[in-house]
């Protein structure tokens, strides 16, 4: 059966031939709405939950002096009081308000995790791009160093570096930077290896582009998405690693209200469950939220992986 010929005037809808002013407005609105609408990957309930939690924590981190009920360092209450009307999350072994300390903890963990992820993504990507683009000896040297770092368990290597530099949050970030750049370098190298022989890159080179310009103009825009996905998924991991180092006494120095250090305090006073439960819950929510957002980002930027993960045929 053949489809009706829409060129036949007798079969056309008159409204289509003479659109009214109202219909035109509706179309314009629809176009604007379509431009503003988030891709479907971001509109899944889990992604919205993730975005909301992250937004809330960033609001807390920015406005915590106005939100926190008490000074997080003031030893002004009775020790080890369980959650109650004054201290909603109870008090710790020095009589400090656990709620205020948990909220202030966001000011430590979130910015440091952000710095860590951004810095390791930049360092790893640059080194990976250089290795992938230039190949040969440069590739060998960079990737063997990456293999060397990969050969050790992440947290053990970070502990060694922090122990050597001395316990502090700055040194913890340096140590984690040292152990986390190779994963970005590997991803970026494999992407650049695939892209460098594409026609548009070769054409650019034939036009006389320098390697730097070729990488910046032709390759980077086409390989950035996977690195961005990896960075988002890595954010939760960064928070866990920073908290882990503080838990082991190698990160935050007291009395800084850092979540990992607070959990470590709680472990020493196991029967006082509120000491570890609330900072632990804070770590949990942030890590889960970033993983949800990372998943959404991956689905949006890399539909093939999304299909593989979700079993959807594309």
């Amino acid at each position, binding site marked *: 059966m053949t489809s009706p010929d829409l060129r036949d005037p007798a079969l056309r809808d008159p409204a289509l031939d003479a659109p009214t002013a109202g219909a035109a407005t509706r179309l314009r609105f629809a176009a604007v709405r379509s431009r503003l609408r988030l891709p479907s990957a971001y509109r899944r309930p889990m992604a919205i939950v993730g975005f909301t939690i992250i937004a809330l924590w960033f609001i807390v981190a920015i406005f915590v002096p106005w939100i926190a009920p008490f000074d997080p360092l003031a030893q002004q209450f009775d020790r080890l009081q369980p959650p109650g009307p004054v201290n909603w999350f109870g008090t710790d072994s020095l009589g400090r308000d656990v709620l205020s300390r948990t909220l202030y903890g966001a000011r430590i963990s979130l910015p440091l995790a952000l710095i860590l992820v951004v810095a390791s993504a930049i360092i790893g990507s640059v080194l990976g791009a250089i290795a992938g683009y230039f190949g040969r000896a440069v590739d060998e040297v960079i990737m063997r160093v990456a293999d060397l770092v990969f050969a050790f368990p992440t947290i053990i290597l970070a502990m060694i570096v922090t*122990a050597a530099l001395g316990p502090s949050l700055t040194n913890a970030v340096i140590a984690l930077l040292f152990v986390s750049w190779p994963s970005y370098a590997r991803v970026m190298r494999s992407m650049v290896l695939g892209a460098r022989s594409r026609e548009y890159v070769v054409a650019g080179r034939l036009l006389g582009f320098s390697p730097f310009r070729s990488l910046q103009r032709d390759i980077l825009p086409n390989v950035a998405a996977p690195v961005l996905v990896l960075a988002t998924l890595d954010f939760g991991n960064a928070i866990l690693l920073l908290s882990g180092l503080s838990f082991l006494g190698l990160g935050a*120095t007291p009395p800084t209200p850092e979540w990992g250090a607070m959990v470590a305090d709680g472990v020493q006073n196991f029967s006082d469950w509120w000491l570890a439960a609330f900072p632990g819950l804070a770590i949990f929510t942030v890590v889960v939220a970033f993983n949800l957002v990372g998943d959404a980002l991956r689905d949006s930027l890399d539909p093939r992986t999304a299909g593989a993960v979700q079993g959807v045929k594309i």
Partner: protein
Amino acid sequence: MKLPTRPARVTALVAIGLASVLAVSACTDNSVSTSSTGAADKTLVIDKSFDLKTSDPARAFELTGSIVDKAIYETVLDFNGSDVTKVVPGIATFEENADNTVLTLTMDGTHTFSDGTPVTADDIVFSLQRVQGIAGNPSFLLDGVTVAKVDDKTITLTSATSNPALPFILPNPSLGIVNSKVLKANGGTTGADDAAEAFLNTTSAGSGPYQLESYDVTTKVAFALNPNYAGTKPAYSRVVLENVEGPTQKINVQAGSAQVALDLNADQVQGMDSSVKVLKNASPYLIYSWYNQDPAVGAGVTDNADFVKAVRQGIDYSKLLSIAGEGSTQPGGMVPSMFLGAITSDPANVFDLTAAKASLAASGYSGEPVTFSYPNDITVNGLQMQTLAEAIQSQLKDVGITLTLAPSPISTFLDAFRAGKLQSGIMYWGPDYPDPADYLVFNPGESLGLRAGWAAGSDATVTAAADAASAASGDDARKTAYEAWQNAANATGPFIPVIQPGQYAVTTSEISTLDLNPVWTVDIADIK
């Protein structure tokens, strides 16, 4: 094979079930024995977190090793209960010469080993020389001491220099007397070639109230009565010392599966139900704060006398005691409260915020950060050093002093501390023996003094007071001299005695007597 009929199968199942229940009951022998009321077969179960390495007294210098050796071996001199200020006779009585260089031991001849042979002067000489010859952890206790037999009842211990602390050292369980004949037959010597440790870890060769029944460094040590013990027969015929961690000890003692728990901290003993008894004592461990006197390290801050005075007056000791829990105490000086020569308080170490601010103003301190170091992986009797450091930081902030906390693992910390490179901080000192002479290291030019940059000759008053204390003879004279030394050190020294944490023993209601002792923690033969 033909299956049994249905009633026969049921009977077989019931029989198997009963057999299983009986077998399980038989395995839990502690509860069965514990419930027994006959004095002759009562079993005592003690929970302790083990740091056990050996039961050989000449090699053991750990807390658990001391409990084990105190039960198996007798010493030439002894302490009564928890009082370590007065030495009492053990296997022998003692006399010292005027300058405290020769200590004469006279045996009463009534003590016998578990194999029935009498304890002789040769056994004492062999045992003490063996401690020296093996050169193990406790050998320093007899450094510079020559042990010699005079006759069958008399032994002399001759020290190279005046040694008034020796009678307080001799009750240490590491100086327990072993059966020399049995030991020599099993590889025992008085030199580094001694090979009797393995034998002593399976068979005890002592004259103490108990003998070894079974021994495992990781799980438990069981003791049976020594039928030939010369002293009062213990209340329990069998004792099991179990390796159990603190939180589980709490459950065990509340459930009655152990009668004594020895490793609970202040927070864990809170809220115990009324079925158990909590014994609270001050621990012999001293937590002190120091301020480096070396200008190169102190940077003109901690080496300033007025600054140290401001810290002394700025620490709220009563607040620290409330954090440490009941049983903890503030020592007046560096000698812990239960030792000879201890002072209960000193006006220099009293919290006075106004006076502290005045002293700080006089010091010329202008708010520069002071690095405050401490080991962050150490707890002393369950009290975290980190908790104390954070509390002191907060208290001194009110005075106007800015402390920057510098936590580090104990191994890293000790390297820098021993080198005298740390500006200030807190640390602890556990007694090697219960005598104030053990604390003379906190003097100018001595090992601990140098860690605080307190060089020899830098404080003539304190040095003179320390020399006088070291030379004093007789309990009264020594007590007075050590008190004067501590007062002098509190006035100008860099060390501030901060706190002695509490030490706790939790028992079931059936235990009526238990003494905590700073040297051997608990004498299990004295538990009733």
